[in-house]
């Protein structure tokens, strides 16, 4: 019988601190994608509200444990099952990191082509966008912190790109 050891997507690579900015790995208990079938969106939203405390947020928004994740699909932080939706375990599919610190917008401005100014991109706002060449989901989690999600297999490239940008910003003093 096998005895399996679990590794997180960024195992051995984080945390990383350069200058005032730190990147840490976020390891959710579980990630579950929820894509409601036709005519079930409202019911799914209500079911989620009862189970995880938040319904389906609008496009480009996060509400509690539920994050808009693309066309007709939401990602729930946690293991849930709801009727009327395609529910898929995604717990191992994504590398999730938090980048935090004074000047974090300057680092992300070197990689992400969308407007992340605090006045425009507020806490709980979500962007499906690019980070250098990677497809990512960016969520503002605080005044000086963002959560970045990319495909698990590309975690090394994500961290490499973040590191180069962090060094460039830090070198300016």
């Amino acid at each position: 019988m096998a005895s399996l050891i679990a590794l997180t997507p960024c195992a051995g690579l984080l945390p990383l601190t350069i200058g005032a900015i730190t990147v840490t790995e976020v390891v959710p208990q579980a990630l579950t994608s929820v894509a409601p079938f036709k005519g079930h969106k409202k019911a799914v939203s209500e079911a989620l509200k009862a189970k995880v405390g938040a319904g389906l947020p609008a496009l480009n928004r996060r509400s509690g444990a539920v994050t808009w994740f693309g066309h007709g699909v939401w990602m729930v932080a946690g293991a849930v099952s709801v009727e009327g939706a395609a529910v898929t375990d995604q717990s191992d599919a994504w590398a999730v990191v938090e980048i935090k610190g004074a000047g974090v917008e300057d680092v992300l401005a070197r990689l992400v082509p969308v407007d992340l100014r605090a006045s425009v991109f507020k806490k709980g706002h979500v962007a499906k966008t690019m980070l250098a060449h990677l497809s990512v989901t960016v969520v503002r989690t605080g005044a000086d912190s963002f959560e970045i999600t990319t495909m698990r297999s590309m975690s090394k490239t994500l961290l490499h790109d973040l590191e180069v940008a962090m060094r460039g910003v830090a070198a300016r003093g």
Partner: protein
Amino acid sequence: MRLATPEKTVTFTFDGQRIKGVPGEPVSAALLAAGIKLVARSFKYHRPRGIMSAGSEEQNALVTVGRGTAQEPNVRATTLEVSEGLEVFSQNAWPSLKHDVMAVNDLVSPFLAAGFYYKTFMWPRSFWEKLYEPIIRRAAGLGALSGESNQDTYEKAFAFCDVLVIGAGPAGLMAALTAGRAGADVVLADEDTAMGGRLLREREDVDGKPAADWVVEALAELEAMPNVRLMTRTTVTGAYDQGTYGALGRIAGGRAAGKPLECFWRIVAKRAVLCAGALERPIAFPNNDRPGVMLASGVRAYVNRWGVAPGKAVAVFGNNDDAHRTARDLAAAGVKVAAVIDSRDDAKVEGDFPLYTGAEVIATKGRHALESITIKTGNGTRVIRCDCLAVSGGWNPTVHLTCHMNGRPTWDVGIASFVPTPESIPGMVTAGACNGAFSTAACLNEGAEVAAGVVADLGLAAEIKTPSADDAAYAIQPLWAVEGKGRKWIDFQNDVHVKDVRLAAQENFRSVEHMKRYTTQGMAPDQGKSSNVVALAVLADATGRGIPETGTTTFRPPYVPVSIAVMGAGSQGKGFAPERFTTSHSASVDRGAPMIEAGLWYRPSYFPKEGESHWRQSCDREVGYVREAVGICDVSTLGKIDIQGPDAAALLDFVYTNGFSTLKVGRVRYGLMLREDGHVMDDGTTARLGETHFVMTTTTAAAGLVMRHLEYVLQAIRPDLDAQVISVTEQWAQFAVAGPKSRELLNTVLDQPITDEDWPFMACGAVSVGGVAGRLFRISFSGEHAYEVAVPSRYGESLFRQLVAQAEVMGGGPYGMEALNVLRIEKGFITHAEIHGRTTAFDIGMERMVSAKKDCIGKAAAARPGLLGESRQQLVGLKSKGVDHALSAGAHLFDKGASHSRVNSKGYVTSVCYSPTIGTHLGLGFLENGRARHGEVIVLRDHLRNITEEVEVCDPVFFDQDGGRARG
């Protein structure tokens, strides 16, 4: 010569000579301070050239910076900051700047006029590329690249704002202050090392105090505003759609401080205010290119801002009042003014220097530096000794950015120049000198007023508060070219003179665009910043038209040269594309496996063992594992798509050629997918995990393509279907366990043993692996009794190591891409080498998989005439004559006896391998009417690798044709 002793200096070298510079000043200032006049050789005639200006418009003083990997050619000495240890080299001269062999070009210059090359090097035609062009290019040129890979780092960055103010002179500062005070998010970008524009370079007062002091106060106020971002050393290079502007930022300290060298910005602004100022233009008089002949504004900048006198005795020549400002500033700084020559008869100026009105400079002397000038007045000619001549032909508003979206500027007779045409760039307005408002007071006023209008547009209220300043009128009488003996240079960077432009007109290149191409005027790094208007005026005169009728060439981005390195920032080397790693990556690398790219993924090629000196040895051994014992291969890179919903089966029926609604739960089926044009898009297996739940696998290469296809089908073609698709490629680590001992091995890792009865060929379902919920599929890409076992990715590395360890105990081990390829060729299984986009289901022998009972994407198109029948090249197997006769993929197939020419090609080879199982070389390929030709011997010919082999055509399935091994 320095006018005062500097407090702090740094030392750099110019062609090896040590030179002292003052921090913050450009190399050009330090060279002038050191009395160095000759700094460059011209592009075509290798004429001695000096420093002309004090800005990014510099035409002459192009230098090379650094050496080796850090070598950068064609840097303008006027924008290059001095720094300790900086190495600066002159360029386009050999053996030295002073003794340049190619200066012989200047002696034969009468033969080298515009159009010379086109007319002279016409035949023989083949000589142009091989002989003439390389020689001409070597003789005429700028700086060279090192040829080594660039090691510097560069950045790209994005910025967003309400108002982008371009240029921080008087207009720009007022615009930024006005918009900033109103609460707008402002970016103020300026290409200089310090903000202030001409206010730092002129002697005048603003708000009752020296202009430079007012600038300090204005900047302090701007810096204190959290909504204002100041970007010095940042040149806005282009205006693009939807309020996007490109900007090149040079980073202070750069390379030495471990910083990126440059940053290329994309600034998205709701509104932009262009305050780019104006560029002074030269006058085309005979031999006006000698080192020491400078633009008057440049002379003032060196004297007033950097305390450097560009000469000991300076003469001033102009057609407007700005020339007098130069004489006045020089006198105030204690520099001798040799003469003021004003082309206007009615010029009035007071000062302690000789003044000549209604006069022109008609000749200059001095080989490597100006020694004297000859002027013509109403009373005859006169020679004046001077080592510097400050020239002002008037000002050209910097309209460049307004032309970047196809706008054409408008001729303004009053200032004898072009001004921006309003609304040339949506969302951008212009203010100050770039708008033709030349006095300081006018610039300050326009900056404030235009910005107030902009912020009002954005729903904010601005107060217009303007400081007092000089408001002298701009008095100019156009003077473009002065007649006389000798060449009258217009475009210094491209060595174009008045006669060239006239020749263009004479040869009927009368359109300004044709003149430009005939003479090359306005090309090269400066893009005609200083020369365009003069050239146009000369052309207008030569063709007997007015300037507005003659038109103007337009300006394209970038405003200043932008290195490719900075535009490609982050993409050097492996930055070119993301790298995708499987969970077993480290385990494979630990075993010494060379990793090869498969799309963005890295997969092991083979796993070498001690004693093996060639990849074939490893590959043959690994093939043996699978055929005789058990092999392990990471197949996680294959696309996995989770499909759920009431109509999931209907979706599959629609995208696959064969039916899936009939598939039983717990079973897997191979499926073929066509494009809308009837050609094969992809293949793979799809497992039915539940009534309304499937998981589809795709090939590694087409995972993204198939996902996009499914989304397209659901959104655009069959929105009636109620199904959801989502990628689970990354969720599962999946390993092939293949070989006669595969079940035996699996039963050592599974919590519940499996049997052939429970898990027949093409079965699938849930399993438990060490307490972890996994999935098991009994499928085979090797033709052997095989499985694929999947666990959540976090356990991937661990499971891979355990499977491999167990396989080794059983006489097997891991196998890589090479062995995988051999195994599938032996079985005639296709990959994208065969389904390469031009083959149909018929071609690959799978037309019977296109179900007659239902419709599917591509079905109708696949039945078009010409896509079926004997004329098609059909998939066949190719067997070589023996182990010494290797085949080659890409080779073409010919009938025996036919010549190996294109018209005789009957097909081509897509995949080859050496098969240790069969003991010979095998190939797959496409052959015209191939299925009817099994048993024939034909010829394989590879013209690239020079391989000719006879091969036997056969069924593509070489091994175990009845498939008994996979089922057994």
